[in-house]
């Protein structure tokens, strides 16, 4: 039982850094944009927040710096897609390249250092050693229903989803598809960078090159699993977090299986999840997803 509780506690912790980018991508894809650059945004967030937190000794300034970086980087992506009619896949992969390279450059002096952590608070009684989380974990699980409410219960959310279904019709109804896409990209950029930042200064307290290990791509898979619904995204993030923690626990117990094979668990699980739940989602997906909108003449 105690094993199960510590697993659950860890699953919730590791769900947070994947839930942020997933929520951002849900919103972005709801406007019709696929962003493959999440991995780059997460890495940028992780390295920038670590560097700022290390220099200023204030983790919250690190989070703020990560948010600003993610926002700026993803607005470049949005500019390419909205104003230059660039392919979303290529623009996203360019962002991925940029994030991988830039984060490695920025983080180079900080490899092997420790930065100021985010403070942790107990979820249950103050004596408990497990279920202690920083504020970003609480915020992640609070943000998901908020995004759901925004998307499905407000007028603005309706406009946003209309852009994703048909930019031309949304335009005819008085919504500017370009503006909506910029705003969604801004939100997604901030979310992805916070996810990365949480990984470096919320969980590990260190920076290493490529430390997000494909979480940006797993988040995109979770968006498909969640069927573009923020509440289902919570389930996906918990499943992924659970897999990561299970793998860490098995390694800590020293069972005689190669660490390389254990590290495969989250990726194999993601492909299996896509295989089981990702089929036939085309009718649920936003209709204009991935298409270039050339404007209405």
């Amino acid at each position: 039982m105690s094993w199960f509780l510590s697993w659950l506690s860890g699953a919730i912790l590791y769900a947070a850094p994947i839930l942020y980018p997933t929520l951002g991508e849900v919103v972005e894809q709801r406007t019709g944009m696929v962003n493959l650059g999440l991995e780059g945004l997460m890495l940028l967030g992780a390295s920038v927040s670590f560097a700022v937190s290390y220099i200023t000794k204030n983790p919250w300034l690190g989070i703020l710096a990560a948010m600003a970086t993610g926002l700026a980087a993803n607005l470049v992506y949005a500019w390419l897609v909205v104003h230059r009619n660039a392919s979303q896949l290529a623009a996203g992969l360019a962002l991925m390249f940029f994030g991988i390279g830039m984060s490695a450059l920025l983080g180079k002096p900080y490899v092997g250092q420790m930065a100021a952590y985010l403070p942790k608070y107990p979820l249950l009684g103050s004596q408990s050693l497990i279920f202690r989380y920083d504020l970003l974990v609480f915020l992640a699980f609070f943000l998901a229903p908020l995004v759901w409410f925004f998307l499905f219960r407000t007028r603005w959310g309706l406009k946003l989803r209309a852009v994703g279904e048909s930019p031309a019709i949304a335009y005819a109804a008085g919504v500017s598809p370009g503006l909506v896409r910029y705003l969604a990209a801004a939100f997604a950029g901030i979310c992805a960078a916070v996810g990365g930042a949480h990984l470096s200064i919320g969980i590990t307290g260190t920076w290493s090159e490529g430390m997000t290990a494909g979480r940006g791509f797993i988040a995109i898979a979770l968006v498909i699993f969640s069927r573009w619904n923020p509440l289902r995204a919570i389930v996906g993030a918990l499943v992924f977090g659970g897999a990561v923690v299970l793998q860490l626990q098995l390694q800590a117990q020293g069972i005689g299986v190669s660490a390389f094979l254990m590290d495969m668990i989250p990726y194999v699980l993601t492909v299996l999840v896509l295989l089981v739940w990702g089929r036939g989602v085309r009718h649920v997906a936003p209709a204009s997803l991935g298409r270039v909108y050339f404007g209405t003449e």
Partner: protein
Amino acid sequence: MPNFLRRWKWPALRLIVTVVVILGVFGLFLLLMGKDPIKAYRDTFTSNVLNPRGLSELVVRMAPLLLTALAVAIPFRVGLINVGAEGQFMLGALLGSWAALNVQGLPQPLHLLLLILAGMVGGALWGAIPGLLRALGWINETITTLLLNYLAPLIVGYFVFGPWRAPELAMYPQTPEFPPTARFPSIAGTRLHLGFFLGLFFLAIYAYLISRSRWGLEMRAVGGNPEAARRLGIPVERWILVAMMVGGALAGLAGIAEVAAIHGRLKMAISPGYGFMGFLINWLAFANPVGILIMSFLVAFIASSGFTLQITQRLPYAAVNVLMALILFTVLAKPLAKGVQR
């Protein structure tokens, strides 16, 4: 003005403007990093193009790039985005290394043929997973190829750190050295090896098949409009699977070529991102064979420049990724003629 000049004036001008913009932006970036861009550009040019040894190393680097670019270009022709050349490269290196290490007593040509085939099978199998899932209409190939890129190095790591680890060099996780019959021959005095010529060979075959054969026509039909192709009786699903497997096979060949020619043993660090560079090359060349040749040279130059900058400017190699991203950003931001989609 002669006719050909009139025809090429604007494309050439656009290309020059693009190059100037990229050099300018990266120069600004170098300045921000506290480096001297003029000196950096001069160093990379003199040591990689003007110096014969540097130039030959540049051509050596083209070998894997030609093949990984083809690995992206062939699926691209049937409308698929293969971002998994990196993983297919690793799996090709793995299976090829198995053939190199476990088969003995064959004459060199046969042994080489065997390990080339094994490498191609490894890449093809890794490409078949996303290809099959896409052909069945289950999962989009972009996301699966990206995820499989993270699995492939773990599989290689399992063998290199585990069952295949060389006992005599316990400190370094790597396999024993390949027997001499499993090493790619190279031109005397350089590292220019068989892999480069295989790359040119497959590029020529690709150029011929895609524009002059029934297969190429069918592939382009599938890429252009799958529904129309299906109505014409073209087996769309089969082409999707075949294109991914052939692409994977070529990336796998690049992997085993790199191991058998350059490293001589399998280890973790065999690719500085050749698969992703192949994607970049194909995007710049738009799957055009001549374009692939030119852009492979260009990207090989950039990758080599990365090593020069690492030495002369003490920049981490990752700066190359930044430069590649800037190139892709600049190309994507270029204004296009109306109605053309990139």
